[in-house]
């Protein structure tokens, strides 16, 4: 009943694929993207010729990628390898399909950052507004430090504790223990968390995502075509995007709450379900605190109460809101939101094995960053 655009054809994910995640120096970003795309085409039983829209992220050159695949799509777009772009790409694919610019779109992500020795701190750090080089003389570098500053503010304003924050990485690691694809699968307890070394206090090693090589692909098409394909369609039921660029060299004073609230309101205004009806959540988890900020911003709990909200295993598989059931960026692999889109699709197909959420029908993907994205996936349009 709810469409992303009124009277526009619903859009569904009809194929997904991914490489394993880890250190794979034998592949570059193109190779990783191709492996994932072929898997997605295989399970959708679509020939490569059917792809008439190509949206890439982190794969350096769209022309080379299309040449490799031997395709001449009607629509082409390439986007930077920033995690916020996974949600943006899915949303753009929906808009392009609904506008009739393409019929079947492949979204392909290829990341060989681990093999390349990509670092998110130090001289090559490009995080932030125009890059962080201006602050290097002060030793200020890394997205982790930016989030550490935010977490310090949250602790100061609301009394959030390390013990509360620990609930996030502990829950995700538990989920990863049930996911054969996850890179880190050994569960840990609070004591282990508290004893893990600080990288940038108040954030510890276990609050940081895991940089790995990997590729992810999704194929999206409209409902009429999706119904003829072998996989159970997973629909993009509603979506919204906001941004927070002004003054974004520095942490947002509201933890991005304003734009998140606005995106969440728009997302749910088009649906017959609310936050409480979500069967699972996929929350962009570059660092543990981002999950805390997202739950507050997208309206899953009251402002400042994220810490107490997540206590008692609420984010675990058997809790009220199973979150990042794959292990997420903190334990499965840092695939910059792309693997979280896949997890939403697989949960709604019911193909997640030991970590399956029973009767999953609606799942909310959300990302808190200077670009805020919100997508509700469902098993029905």
């Amino acid at each position, binding site marked *: 009943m709810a469409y992303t655009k009124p009277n526009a054809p619903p859009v569904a994910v009809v194929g997904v694929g991914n490489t394993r995640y880890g250190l794979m120096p034998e592949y570059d970003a193109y190779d990783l993207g191709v492996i994932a795309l072929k898997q997605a085409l295989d399970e959708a039983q679509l020939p490569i010729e059917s792809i008439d829209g190509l949206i890439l992220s982190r794969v350096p050159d769209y022309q080379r990628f299309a040449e490799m695949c031997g395709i001449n799509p009607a629509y082409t777009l390439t986007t930077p390898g920033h995690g916020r772009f996974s949600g943006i790409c899915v949303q753009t694919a929906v808009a392009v399909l609904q506008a009739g610019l393409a019929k079947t779109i492949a979204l392909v992500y290829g990341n060989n950052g681990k093999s390349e020795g990509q670092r998110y701190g130090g001289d090559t750090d490009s995080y932030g507004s125009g890059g962080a080089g201006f602050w290097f*003389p002060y030793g200020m570098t890394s997205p982790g430090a930016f989030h550490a500053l935010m977490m310090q503010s949250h602790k100061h304003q609301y009394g959030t504790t390390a013990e509360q924050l620990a609930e996030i990485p502990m829950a995700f690691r538990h989920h990863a223990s049930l996911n054969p694809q996850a890179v880190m699968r050994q569960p840990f307890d609070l004591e282990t968390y508290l004893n893990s070394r600080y990288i940038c206090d108040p954030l510890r090693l276990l609050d940081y995502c895991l940089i790995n090589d990997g590729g992810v692909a999704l194929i999206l098409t409209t409902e009429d075509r999706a119904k003829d394909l072998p996989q159970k369609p997973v629909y993009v039921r509603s979506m919204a995007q906001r941004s927070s660029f002004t003054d974004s060299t520095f942490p947002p004073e509201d933890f991005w709450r304003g734009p998140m609230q606005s995106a969440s309101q728009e997302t749910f205004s088009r649906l017959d379900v609310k936050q409480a009806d979500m069967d699972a959540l996929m929350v962009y988890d570059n660092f543990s605190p981002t999950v805390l900020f997202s739950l507050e911003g997208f309206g899953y709990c009251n402002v400042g109460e994220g810490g107490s909200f997540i206590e008692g295993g609420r984010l675990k598989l058997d809790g009220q809101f199973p979150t990042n059931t794959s292990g997420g960026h903190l334990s499965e692999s840092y695939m910059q939101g792309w693997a979280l889109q896949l997890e939403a699709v697989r949960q709604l197909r019911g193909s997640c094995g030991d970590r399956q959420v029973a009767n999953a029908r609606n799942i909310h993907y959300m990302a808190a960053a200077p670009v805020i994205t919100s997508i509700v996936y469902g098993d029905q349009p």
Partner: protein
Amino acid sequence: MTLPNYTKPLPEITPHMAPYWHGLQMHTLLLQMCVSCTRFRFPAASICPHCLSSESHWQQVSGDGVLSSYATFHKAYWPSFSGSIPYSVIQVQLDVGVKLYSNWYADQPKEPLIGMSVVAQYEHVSDAVTLLKFSPREQSK
């Protein structure tokens, strides 16, 4: 000339930011102010983000502000910081509204408190570069 043994990263002094660095060398804090709406912006840019005016001048301001947040690095992202860890990066909001990242000048306070008043200090690190740092207001008297 850089101070002997000073190996930490130095800023790139771009044309936009040159007046700021020249000011710090003279222990004054100059910020770019919009002529049209009189608001400050930082880092410097060719237009005002509030009114899009291209007219600006450099105004001397007080280095007084408050501590907005801080984080303590236990990892050295440059070898030159390995002798400094753990060290704190502080986020300061100047009374004129501009935000900055910086460090404590000399020793950091035992218990930094978000919201505490801070004052500017000037740390000479090379002939071309003086860094803007801060100390708690109480201790600076």
